[in-house]
């Protein structure tokens, strides 16, 4: 661990930017200007660059617009859709009906397309709350095929095989009949989706998506309402896909069954994968290529289905970050920042553990921040926690020890709401949380860490600290889309607090490093800091010293005592490293086989023959 084999010192960022990123209205302005000028541009350029080329570019940009929502769903939120074509189809047909059949303005068609897409995604997404994992793939597959073979073929609704004509968009008296004008419109709409997507990812909503993709339990421990954010992801996906479908309809001029096939859905999955999950620019670029190139270079058409999936498989196995990863590497190279693996001394790292004062929330100081009464947790026939009653005293460090399989982590999970209790009562900071979902328990002023680091490894340290403050970001998710002033203010406050935390930890230079690049000990310290930041009432630590060197563990012990004395934190910790327990704990609970064996001071525990027997595997007298 201590071996310092730094080939090159990781770039030290002396200035840590305090300001939240600004809403990119400048970019928006460019789009608007482009749109306003496009009719003139179109005529000026019509020499070398004819309408046919413009139409091809329209396809490219539309594909990019269509791929971004799937990237949002798969890349950010970690959910899958194998029925993407159906969502696009819903949008195209909605526009066909509104703008084509009814002759209403195309903007209305666009809005209806978005609404229809959102509703469809909501209906598909709701079961995903109850059904985890693979089943979403099946349900979206079924949705795609059902829409294709029934809805998109109903003569009365969608015009049967012939489909519906989707006319060129009209805005007032201006008709986008020239392909250059159409291209300008498509670019503006694509830009709008890009901006909304970008805004979203700079706020708590985007961070919540990334967290629930990583580990739902961790997300819930930070106070993120997992089902709600899943639904947000689906609704946004559906609305944006609907909009893209509407544009696709206008570009093709038709909404037809044969456009929205099963393999069209799969191609978008391939596009997102080649672009690189989570990489907005990579996905847009790969989609643009898929949309434009077969029409630009006719001979490519046959090869796309052959080369693209092969590329995906190769990417998955060899380069999991895809095109986006390559783009990021180039960016790093241009900025002269190498993503060198940051190595450092764990012992030194732990020495720095001082925690920032937690943000005051409205939790009351109570004598016993945690009271567990007769809690039972069963998994099928196995009783993991069998009627445990214990409490944790205010401003004390309380230990929970016991042999492997004693039920310690299960008890922690029951307290933080990650497993169901069959019986008993749990009171946190004077609030009965027994029936509350996990994310609301976090709001009662309880933070926790996990045996495996409970943070997102491929987010930067700063972003992780922002994620931890999820509950403190009080703006609503809709305003996050527009990155409105209150969002900007809220984000700035979170960033200030994150920066403060980093400076207290003396981790400023890791601010922009991916968490996964830090050493295990450093990650642990960031995790404890993150959990403590928003939880003045009670801090649950699950084996904080796991994976640390003995010296680092010793330093950690000193820091925990410091947290108790200087900040006044209450700490409840599971620990196997007994010297740490002896050094820090004021009181220790011992569990064995799901039961509370005894409680006492560390000295009493050490002398207790039952405890010794439990640890040595002998039989208690």
């Amino acid at each position, binding site marked *: 661990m201590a071996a310092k084999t730094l080939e090159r010192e990781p770039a030290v960022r002396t200035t840590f930017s305090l300001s939240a990123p600004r809403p990119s209205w400048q970019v928006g302005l460019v789009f608007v200007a482009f749109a306003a000028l496009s009719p003139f541009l179109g005529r000026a350029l019509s020499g070398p660059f004819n309408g046919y080329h413009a139409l091809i570019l329209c396809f490219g940009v539309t594909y990019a617009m269509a791929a971004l929502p799937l990237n949002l769903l798969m890349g950010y939120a970690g959910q899958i859709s194998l029925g993407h074509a159906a969502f696009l189809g819903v949008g195209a047909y909605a526009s066909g009906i509104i703008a084509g059949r009814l002759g209403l303005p195309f903007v209305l068609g666009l809005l209806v397309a978005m609404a229809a897409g959102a509703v469809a995604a909501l209906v598909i997404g709701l079961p995903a709350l109850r059904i985890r994992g693979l089943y979403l793939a099946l349900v979206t597959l079924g949705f795609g095929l*059902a829409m294709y073979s029934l809805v998109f073929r109903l003569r009365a609704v969608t015009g049967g095989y012939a489909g519906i004509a989707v006319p060129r968009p009209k805005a007032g008296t201006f008709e986008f009949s020239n392909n250059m004008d159409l291209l300008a419109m498509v670019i503006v709409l694509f830009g709008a989706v890009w901006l909304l997507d970008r805004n979203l990812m700079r706020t708590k909503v985007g961070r919540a998506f990334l967290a629930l993709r990583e580990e739902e339990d961790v997300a819930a421990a930070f106070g993120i309402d997992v089902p709600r954010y899943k639904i947000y992801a689906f609704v946004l996906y559906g609305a944006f896909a609907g909009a893209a479908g509407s544009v696709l309809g206008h570009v093709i001029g038709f909404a037809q069954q044969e456009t929205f096939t099963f393999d069209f859905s799969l191609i978008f999955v391939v596009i997102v994968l080649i672009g690189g999950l989570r990489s907005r620019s990579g996905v847009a670029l790969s989609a643009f290529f898929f949309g434009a190139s077969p029409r630009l270079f006719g001979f490519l058409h046959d090869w796309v289905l052959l080369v693209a999936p092969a590329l995906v*498989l190769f990417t998955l196995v060899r380069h999991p970050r895809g095109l986006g990863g390559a783009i990021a590497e180039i960016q790093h190279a241009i900025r002269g920042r190498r993503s060198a693996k940051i190595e450092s001394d764990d012992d030194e790292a732990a020495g720095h553990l001082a925690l920032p004062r937690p943000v005051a929330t409205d939790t009351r100081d109570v004598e016993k921040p945690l009271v567990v009464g007769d809690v039972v947790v069963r998994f099928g026939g196995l009783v993991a926690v069998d009627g445990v009653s214990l409490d944790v005293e205010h401003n004390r460090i309380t230990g929970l020890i016991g042999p492997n399989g004693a039920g310690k982590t299960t008890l922690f999970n029951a307290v933080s709401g990650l497993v169901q209790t069959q019986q008993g009562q749990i009171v946190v900071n004077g609030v009965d949380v027994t029936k509350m979902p996990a994310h609301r328990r976090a709001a009662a002023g309880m933070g926790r860490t996990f045996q495996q680091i409970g943070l997102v490894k491929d987010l930067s340290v700063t972003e992780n600290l922002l994620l931890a403050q999820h509950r403190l970001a009080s703006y609503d998710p809709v305003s996050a889309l527009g990155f409105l002033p209150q969002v900007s203010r809220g984000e700035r406050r979170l960033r200030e607090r994150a920066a403060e935390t980093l400076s207290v930890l003396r981790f400023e230079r890791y601010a922009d490093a991916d968490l996964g690049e830090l050493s295990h000990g450093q990650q642990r310290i960031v995790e404890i800091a993150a959990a403590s930041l928003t939880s003045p009432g009670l801090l649950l630590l699950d084996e904080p010293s796991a994976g640390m060197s003995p010296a680092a563990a010793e330093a950690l012990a000193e820091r925990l005592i410091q947290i108790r004395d200087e900040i006044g934190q209450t700490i409840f910790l599971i620990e196997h490293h007994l010297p740490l327990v002896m050094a820090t704990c004021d009181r220790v609970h011992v569990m064995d086989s799901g039961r509370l064996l005894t409680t006492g001071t560390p000295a009493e525990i050490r002398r207790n023959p039952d405890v010794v027997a439990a640890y040595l595997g002998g039989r208690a007298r």
Partner: protein
Amino acid sequence: MGTILVIGIATGAVYGLFAFGLVLVYKATRVLNFAQAEIGAFAAFLTWTLTNPVHLPWALAAGIALAASGIVGMAFERLVIRPLISASRLTLVVATVSAGLLVGGVELKAWGGNPKILSSPFTFRGPSIAGVVLPPPRLVALIIGIVAAAVAAWFFRRTTFGLALLAAAQDVVGVRLTGIRLRHLSAFTWGVSSVIGGITGIVIALSLGAFAPFFMARLMLLAFAAAVVGGMTSLPGALVGGVAVGVAEATIAHFWISVPGLVETVMFGVIVLVLLVRPSGLLGRAA
């Protein structure tokens, strides 16, 4: 009524057989094999080439095609699934989806998008049950389905290899400790499921008359519905589910022939409903 049942059971046997392959892979490796359909289609195309332009005897052609699909499945397992086995389930879904698309792309490139017609090797007239003449390919699929179920039941209950396969899905380390080579297990299931895909591909191609790349996508939906109804982890459940889906399809075709795509829509609804109400299906055990 009898007609519906006979047609339903005969087509359902094919769905059940296909679902059987899906469940086999899912049981052993917890991966949904979205590639099985196109690997099956590949076998049909290969059979077409070997019987039409090449004029090999039918049995030999089908044998070669099935062996080839098995090899494709095992190669895929070796090159993609094994390196990714500890990746997220999302990644694995994407991997099998891409593999299916890749095989479809190969078919498009090699055989083009125009429909092909596979002539039936069976010269006898199928038996007549309840007034319905059972086409020979369906009869063969029915027999293969029953035989496959029996073999699988014996394999998973009575052989060490089969038991290890089931155990591997639960506890990889445990199986490794027994000295059984996991690699062989995983490759074996992917091979078998791909051959099953091949058999169903050929049968469906024969009964459709004309077929083009991606003709198996619909079958995939119906077979997944069958697997879900059967509980996703139950091999007999897959066969029973397949028959249920077949009978449902025959019923819909009989009464509401004029509504297009009703079968697919109903099956979509069935998947959603079963997953919501009873995720363990008819015969599956709770995970």
